[in-house]
């Protein structure tokens, strides 16, 4: 019996699967592979951003700090969760929980799924740039292992704000981009309708990013996408998270920090001329 051959998908096909209305989101993985979730709220400064959730959780027999974007299902939930677009308050909550994980000495799992950081007036007023920058800087020297999983859309700085991990995993139909294909098309192609061309050029698929050495692992989705088999994708994500956590079990803090610094120092392609 021959294996089912997967159709070769264009980058734009992948973008559409990553945005599929029935694609599993953080709250689905929460109920399927994490147990005893103790949700923690607030940034201790301004509000509790519902686009970003976090708290203590167990995966397998591992106690972790789980943090991630939650887009919500159905329109009313989407609006409540701001479609997974966090404000500075969300990044500050994430940072508070990451520092808590460091104090308690438990690993951090971040689940990334966002169209981008929220581009609103109040977000700008409350320092969207500073909140993300602060997270990037703090995550670089956190003394516990950090595993990041892109399950849907990795929307630029909005994703990276919880994405500076020791390992970056991506679901096979997820995307990670410096700008949305629509945004890129409207600037470089003068028209958002060229989004499919921009998507291709941006190399925003998991396979492209894995080839470029930017991400560490692709988690294969079942059939036509994660939305077709929640149980199967959940098992794959669980197994991947656990095996990556295992890698860091015996790392010293020095090894961990040095390894993370070397990882990010090594990302980028440029020419050194003589």
């Amino acid at each position, binding site marked *: 019996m021959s294996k089912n051959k997967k159709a070769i998908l264009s980058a734009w096909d992948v973008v559409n699967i990553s945005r599929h209305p029935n694609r599993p989101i953080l709250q689905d993985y929460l109920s399927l592979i994490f147990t005893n979730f103790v949700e923690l709220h607030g940034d201790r400064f301004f509000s509790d951003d519902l686009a970003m959730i976090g708290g203590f959780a167990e995966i397998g027999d591992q106690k972790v700090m789980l943090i991630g974007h939650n887009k919500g299902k159905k329109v009313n939930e989407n609006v409540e969760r701001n479609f997974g677009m966090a404000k500075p308050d969300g990044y500050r909550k994430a940072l508070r929980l990451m520092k808590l994980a460091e104090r308690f000495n438990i690993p951090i799992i971040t689940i990334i799924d966002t169209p981008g950081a929220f581009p609103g*007036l109040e977000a700008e*007023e409350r320092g969207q740039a500073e909140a993300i920058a602060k997270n990037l800087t703090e995550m670089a020297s956190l003394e516990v292992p950090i595993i990041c999983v892109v399950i849907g859309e990795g929307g630029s700085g909005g994703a990276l704000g919880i994405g500076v991990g020791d390992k970056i995993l991506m679901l096979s139909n997820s995307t990670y981009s410096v700008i949305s294909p629509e945004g890129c098309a409207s600037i470089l192609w003068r028209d958002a309708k060229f989004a499919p061309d921009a998507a291709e050029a941006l190399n925003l698929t998991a396979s492209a990013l894995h080839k*470029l050495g*930017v991400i560490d692992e692709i988690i294969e989705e079942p059939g036509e996408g994660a939305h077709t088999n929640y149980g199967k994708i959940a098992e794959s994500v669980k197994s991947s998270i656990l095996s990556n956590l295992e890698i860091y079990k015996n790392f010293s803090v020095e090894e961990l920090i040095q390894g993370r610094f070397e990882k990010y*120092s090594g*990302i*980028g392609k440029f020419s*050194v001329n003589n």
Partner: protein
Amino acid sequence: MAWYSELTAIKKKSKEDLWIKCKKCQSHIYKSEWEENLNVCPNCNYHGSITSYERINLLFDKNTYKELFNNISPIDSLKFIDLKGSYKDKYETAIKKTGISESVVTGHGKINNIEAVVAVMDFRFLGGSLGSGTGEKILRAANYAYDNNLPYIIFSASGGARMQEGVLSLMQMAKTCAGVARLNKKNIPYISVLTNPTTGGVSASYAMMGDLNISEPGALIAFAGRRVIEQTIGEKLPDDFQTSEYLLKHGFIDSIIDRKNMKNYLSNVLSYYSREIN
């Protein structure tokens, strides 16, 4: 008005611009006066653009500046081609036009006798965009400061992350911040100077992480673009939105410093640092 039409007539006749028109107050300023005033309008204090080398000349004591890492240039790693052509053509043109090989110039020298490492971004090079080479130079300069126990100053001027390198550009935000994190750990001062414009992925990384964040007057400092925000909220935004003055009001920068005072301001704040590091 007769004098005005004479002025415009003279402007049209000569190829060489005798005057600069201030972008803010629309005054006509003699080019020599503009340049003597450090590309700042003597009428309204609008701070015009300045090249990386011009800024370096203003900043460092004579004959103390040494450039570092100037052998780094872009690569078209994604083979990116858009409506206007290839990324390769774009950066090769930028290199020819500006004489620099990436959107940041790095080096070290003395500022009123205080040795410091400096990275100066140049908006002329692909809009000062943050690409792999930019991030690499900024990190290498940070590492140089770390290894030699020298303060680090970054002058930002950028339209954000460079799209043509995709997520490689995005990751430069994390890479440069990792460099800043190490300086923080060693208690080495890092000063961020935000100049016009400082936006997107640059504002959301090293530019906002200075021990001091200072900026020039009237600089555009933003995360998201004004139009995107207006479309998102469906409202008009305040006139001073995303300016240095707005950020000062909202608590995100320490001070606004005129270009002519920048050198002395920097050496003054650095003089307060009194650690001995081994």
